[in-house]
């Protein structure tokens, strides 16, 4: 019963919040409802016994990602209402509705197989007397998924470099569009920096 109530509360709330995110004309509302929806999703993760995932969701999404978005919003000065021209709203909703319908139809069928064995069962560390989602996650993450984990680290490095370069000052001059010789250009850039 507890699960039932919690699920429906979370589900309905996230749906409404995300709808606001998608529908709202105001970036601030949109972003706030997105953040709130994500918090509620972490609740769903806790319900599903994925404690660590829930925590990560809170920290990374609500903490980091939303902070980035907030910063961007300020940069773009997008607090005021955004004017969007919508040519065919009806069609969009029809498409979205159709998509949702297909998912509902699809997921109404039983997806879980009877004879499927869990490859990395929850409670890996149980026999050691220490149970807990975080430890299990740690165990799997640093054995089986060590390679993807490291690649993800590279990916984050790439993202960092990309962010630094793209938002960097050097992008303000375009060597690509400038006919001046290299020497002149260097001088010019130096002057500008001083």
């Amino acid at each position, binding site marked *: *019963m507890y*699960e039932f109530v919690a*699920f429906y509360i979370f*589900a309905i709330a*996230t*749906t409404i919040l*995300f709808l606001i*995110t*998608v529908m709202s004309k105001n*970036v601030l509302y949109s*972003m706030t409802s*997105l953040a709130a929806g994500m918090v509620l999703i972490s609740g*769903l*993760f806790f319900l*599903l*016994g*994925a404690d660590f*995932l829930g925590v*990560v*969701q809170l920290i*990374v*999404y609500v903490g980091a*990602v939303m902070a*980035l*978005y907030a910063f*961007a919003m300020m940069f*773009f000065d*997008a607090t005021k209402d*955004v004017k*969007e*021209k*919508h040519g065919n709203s009806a069609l*969009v909703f029809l*498409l*979205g509705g159709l*998509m949702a319908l297909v*998912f*509902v139809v699809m997921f*109404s069928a*039983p*997806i*879980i197989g009877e004879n*499927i064995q*869990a*490859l*990395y*069962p929850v409670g890996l560390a149980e026999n050691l007397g220490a149970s807990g989602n975080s430890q*299990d*996650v740690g165990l*799997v993450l640093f054995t089986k998924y060590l390679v*993807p984990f490291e690649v993800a680290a590279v*990916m*984050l490095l790439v*993202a*960092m470099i*990309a*962010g630094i370069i*793209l*938002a960097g000052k050097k992008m*303000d001059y375009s060597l690509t569009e400038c006919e001046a010789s290299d020497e002149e250009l260097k001088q010019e850039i130096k002057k500008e920096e001083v």
Partner: protein
Amino acid sequence: MEIGIGHYLILSGILFSIGFVGVLRRKNLLMLFFATEIMLNAVNIAFAAIGNYYGDLSGQMFAFFIIAVAASEVAVGLGLLIILYKKYGSLDLDVISTMKG
């Protein structure tokens, strides 16, 4: 009343579709990115739910990596947005359409 995996998956599907609508509907790039975040979050629910019902950790793992990817995408995406805003002075998709045909 038992909440089965079907409930979670249907929720996931609905949220995914909401994100999808957002992607189709939004003309403001920043808000469009919000919509993609919703889609990824919806998928995370599906993974967590399936993993839970199999008693398997792989689903959670995928969800972790999706979160990592989402974070990286935000970094790159915002970098692009900033530079685009500098050049075009707008984030409206219809303005950014010099290449066509």
